[in-house]
């Protein structure tokens, strides 16, 4: 769906992004992860054909963005970090304007607007002035304008920025609902957003892609041999549970973290994610299992390693990038 080959963008003397190369397949949901100022928005604006790169090539659906930008824009729905909303328009009129602007036939506009409002839960706000909406609803209108013309590719730049926890959950659910119908590229610096919504991560730092892959791939590559930490809460004394856990194949260590009344919290180190066999063993052993989960912070660790140079080091990062470039150049 998207082929990015060696794009660089300079703002004056400053390179916002440098020699970015990556591919995105049709139907994928990609998380674009980076700290503020890493070059995420610039990259997304280039993919959205709002900006042109200083050098390099971007193809969307096989079309060169520099040669036929208007053709590419027909296939893209773009939500920038600040939703481009006209406060004096009603939601319905604004979406109809966006649809017409993207080439939707006048006869189809009402249906498309209704469909976009349905998908973003905006039906009851159809006649509301955009200027009177809360931040969460404005963000939804931003998503609705991006998908009103049913583009193949949706690009969302920090769609949860400034939302409260409830609105974040709703936005996440909205984006999940779009999966399957569109290829989706979501940027964020909220790590849990990316982890829960996306199939694959592209991690950008100082204008360069420092790594890419699923969370599992990244964890395996960055911390080979490192154990997976699993948290287990059981009702009653921990002794029986610890004994059972010690017998589960693959468990390296099991220890008591804390006790609060009848609840014992245990921590298990394992070579791989053993949540299923651990749960099975505990239940079969007659232990009342209250909760089992992987310890939080894994993705945060990966992210910090990649963006702060705590991981495999620049040599490894550039090596993996070169490998990927080599791989992507192969089939072309």
């Amino acid at each position, binding site marked *: 769906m998207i082929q990015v080959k060696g794009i660089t963008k300079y*703002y004056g003397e400053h390179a916002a992004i440098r020699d970015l190369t990556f591919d995105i397949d049709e139907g994928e949901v990609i998380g674009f992860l980076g700290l503020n100022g890493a070059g995420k928005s610039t990259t997304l604006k280039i993919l*959205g*054909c*709002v*900006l*042109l790169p*200083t050098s390099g090539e971007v193809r969307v659906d096989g079309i060169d963005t520099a040669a036929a930008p*208007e*053709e590419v*824009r*027909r296939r*893209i729905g*773009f939500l*920038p970090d*600040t*939703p*481009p*909303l*006209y406060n*004096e*328009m009603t939601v319905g009129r604004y979406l109809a*304007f*966006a649809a*017409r*602007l*993207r*080439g939707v036939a006048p006869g189809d506009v009402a249906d498309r607007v209704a469909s976009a409002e349905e998908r973003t839960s905006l039906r009851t706000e159809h006649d509301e002035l955009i200027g009177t909406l809360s931040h969460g609803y404005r963000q939804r209108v931003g998503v609705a*304008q991006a998908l009103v013309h049913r583009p193949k590719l949706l690009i969302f730049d920090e769609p949860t920025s400034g939302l409260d926890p409830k609105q974040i959950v709703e936005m996440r659910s909205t984006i999940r609902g779009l999966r399957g119908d569109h290829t989706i590229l979501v940027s964020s610096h909220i790590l849990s957003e990316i982890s829960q919504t996306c199939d694959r991560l592209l991690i950008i730092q100082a204008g360069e892609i420092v790594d890419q892959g699923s969370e599992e791939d990244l964890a395996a590559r960055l911390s080979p041999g490192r154990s997976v930490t699993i948290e287990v809460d059981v009702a009653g004394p921990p002794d029986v549970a610890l004994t059972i856990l010690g017998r589960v194949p693959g468990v390296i260590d099991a220890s008591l973290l804390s006790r609060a009344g009848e609840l014992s919290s245990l921590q298990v180190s394992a070579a791989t994610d053993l949540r299923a066999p651990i749960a099975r063993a505990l239940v079969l052993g007659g232990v009342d299992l209250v909760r089992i989960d992987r310890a939080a912070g894994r993705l945060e660790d990966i992210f910090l390693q990649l963006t702060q140079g705590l991981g495999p080091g620049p040599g490894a990062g550039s090596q993996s990038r070169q490998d990927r470039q080599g791989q992507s150049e192969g089939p072309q």
Partner: protein
Amino acid sequence: MNATLLIARRELGTYLRSMTGYIIAALLLLVDGLLFNIFAIGGDDKLSAQVLAQFFFYTSGLTMIASVFLSMRLLAEERQTGTIVLLMSSPVGEAEIVLGKFLSGITFLAMVLALTLFMPLLVLVNGKIAPGHLVAGYLGLLLLGSAAMAIGTLGSTLARTQVLAAIFSACMVTAMVLAWMLVKVTERPFNDVFASLAIHGKHFMPFQEGTIHVRDVVYYLVVTMVALFAAVRVMEVRRWR
């Protein structure tokens, strides 16, 4: 062309729904009415044609000022609020965006100018006016307004804020008005060049007297096209910067 009309219609709706458009229109009508009463009708007895010529003279100055203020928001506001991304990420060319914005501004200006029509019609109470004079005068105002609006649109693409856009545009329009004054302090061939460049003076005077010269019509159309072309180029360059 569809996108141009779509953008123009939305933009015109913004003028009609916001206070800014009405304030500019009201001020133009107020000041024009005062000038008409004090200078055009007031004072010594005049011929109807002289009253009409003075009305067009004063209205032309106000038309240029109104054009600068009406055009300042066209693209600068979109950049300021980030809504320009909606247009830039849509399958619409820069020329369509600029033309749509310009069309909305000139249409609103034409509506405001139409509201001044009662003043020349008042002359009919005690005098006579030639319909041709009226047509020529209003055509001149529209062409002058079109050139000033196009320069304003260029200023609006150059600036990040509406205030800066108004300052840029006012400077450009003022420079083109002042070119007429340079005619008096320079010698040939420079005074001929300044006279040809001046946005008012030589090119507007015939219209206010009721005469239409193709030369003047072409001048205003060329200024409009050059300014709009420059605005389109600025927009295109922004994608690379």
